[in-house]
């Protein structure tokens, strides 16, 4: 099968959905010029024209709000946030407006909106270019939150997100952009709300998101022979595929959640909460959450590496979970 980059998969999904549905358009900074600064929108303006691929001034509140208003009146916008950090300058439009309007209208208005945001760490871009907002958007009623870790999922989930009737936050990992993987041609979707076991195992469930999925898989390899690790990627963080998480935990009786974002009040906390609520008696050892240290992400690689969970930290955390009961 052909191999393509994660970022090519995102690009393909947009090509296909824009061809399929005339109401879909892309809006964001530089998306029309040379395919955008990360080249995610390559070829779109040439194919669909300047009407449907709209480069904007650096006015995130205005163009996010414009997109929300366009969604309210019949279009299906894809908004690109160059870095998810910049969502902060448009947070009112993203939350107070886009997330609430459909409900506040008593269901009389629909707001199908995809906000694509690039995020990630490990590239020394410091605190204001290394943020994670998945937990904020999960906390906010009104959003679905998608976080693909493979090119296959990136394509299939983005197509589903674009067809969804609700605001969807779609998070793209900057480091994964140039990961190359097998992605079949043709028409298929990955439905929102379905997790996938990326590696089967018997001793412990590691729920991991984004780039941490790959780190967890490496950790699982290192532990192989000693500990049989199951790696589960929720892919959609909200709505969470809780049945998949529970059935894995019921099998392994142990849980570690790994993410690159800070832990306090996060997705990791939430998974732990749900698992203990639903499967307390099935747990052998206390579950653990592993994420970034509670500091803004530092610039220096020496510090950044230490602040973000690495493969060896996951290995240690797995061992810590399993030893807890001893």
């Amino acid at each position: 099968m052909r191999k393509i980059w994660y970022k090519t998969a995102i690009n393909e999904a947009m090509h296909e959905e824009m061809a399929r549905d005339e109401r879909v358009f892309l809006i964001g900074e530089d998306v029309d010029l040379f395919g955008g600064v990360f080249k995610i929108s390559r070829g779109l303006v040439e194919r669909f024209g300047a009407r449907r691929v709209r480069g904007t001034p650096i006015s995130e509140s205005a163009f996010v709000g414009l997109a929300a208003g366009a969604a309210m009146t019949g279009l299906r916008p894809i908004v690109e946030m160059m870095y998810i950090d910049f969502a902060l300058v448009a947070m009112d439009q993203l939350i107070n407006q886009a997330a609430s309007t459909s409900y506040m209208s008593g269901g009389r208005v629909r707001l199908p909106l995809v906000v694509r945001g690039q995020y990630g760490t490990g590239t020394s871009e410091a605190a204001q270019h290394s943020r994670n907002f998945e937990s904020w958007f999960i906390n906010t009623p009104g959003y679905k939150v998608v976080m693909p870790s493979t090119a296959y999922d990136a394509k299939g989930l983005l197509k589903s997100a674009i067809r969804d009737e609700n605001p969807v936050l779609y998070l793209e990992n900057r480091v994964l952009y140039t990961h190359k993987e097998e992605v079949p041609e043709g028409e298929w979707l990955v439905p929102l709300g379905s997790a996938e076991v990326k590696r089967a195992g018997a001793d412990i469930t590691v729920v991991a998101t984004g780039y941490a999925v790959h780190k967890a898989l490496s950790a699982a390899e290192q532990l192989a022979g000693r500990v049989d690790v199951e790696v589960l990627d929720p892919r959609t963080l909200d709505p969470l595929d809780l049945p998949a998480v529970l059935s894995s935990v019921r099998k392994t009786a142990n849980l570690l959640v790994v993410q690159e974002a800070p832990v306090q009040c996060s997705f990791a906390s939430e998974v732990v909460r749900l698992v203990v609520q639903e499967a307390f008696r099935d747990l052998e050892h206390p579950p653990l959450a592993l994420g970034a240290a509670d500091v803004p992400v530092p610039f220096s690689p020496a510090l950044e590496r230490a602040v973000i969970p690495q493969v060896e930290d996951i290995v240690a955390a797995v061992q810590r979970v399993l030893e807890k009961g001893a």
Partner: protein
Amino acid sequence: MESIDLHIKRELLEYLVLIRRFEERVKVLYHQGAIMGAIHLYIGQEAVAVGVCRSLRDEDTVFSTHRGHGHAIAKSGEVERIMAELMGRDEGLSRGHGGSMHLFEPPKGLMGGNGIVGGGIPLSLGGAFTAQYQGSDRISVGFFSDGAVNQGTFAECLNLAALWKLPVLLVCENNQYAATTPVERSTAVRDVVGRARAFGVRAEKVDGNDVEAVFQAATAAVAALRQSQGPRLLECETYRVEPHCGIIPDERTPGERELWNPRDPVSLFVGRLVGEGAISASDLEALERRVRERLDRAVEFGARSPWPDPQVDPHRTWVLQ
């Protein structure tokens, strides 16, 4: 400037009176506890909503504010369901989910109020964007007041609307106050028209208490917008007669409000129409009676409408696919 047809003048008057009496009812119902939440009365500004909204078609979209009863009535005419919404009922415009600040009637182009000052301006550009995208001659209207011009969204939207020549009419109701802050304590340059022009948006100032002046200015702007001539701004000078909000006491200098009495938009227009011989005293009585009866029905409708049932209400975030 073309003069306005008599039947339109009568329509404008009807809406002016309807909104005024509606708001007076709301005030009473609020103090009786039959209407709850944050209620921002529109009294004194009726000419703006009526003059602008009656120059529009149903399909044109309006994005309103926290002070949106007037816009909602002038655009949708759905007095009964608006009243029911303010009372939190299931047959309310937003099925009780939105309340006073979130009145939606999409079939009539009413796309909701907003609890966030300046929050609706970007959305109003979205309505214009959709029209332009679809090659329609629909236009979109964004209402806001003098306080909102100091939100970043206003400036961002002026530039974006001008850059993309969006068919959006931005209507600034300069009612002299943002909550308790008078306009001279919130802006260094009082003139909103000048700001708009500096961003490339054609702008005009109009007497916001003169419904004919507003209607004429809006009609001209709307015609230009339908011909893709780019965004327009209307700054309507007016005055907020009531306190900012139900719960907030008003502490304006004594006598200040009274100074505006001669500019009351309803009396002003009534006086003019009577002077022109366009309406008689008995027309006026009949109108007041019609409005009173309609509002009686609206209050009754609201009071009879069931509360939304939390068991039926799906409590769900996501629209079904």
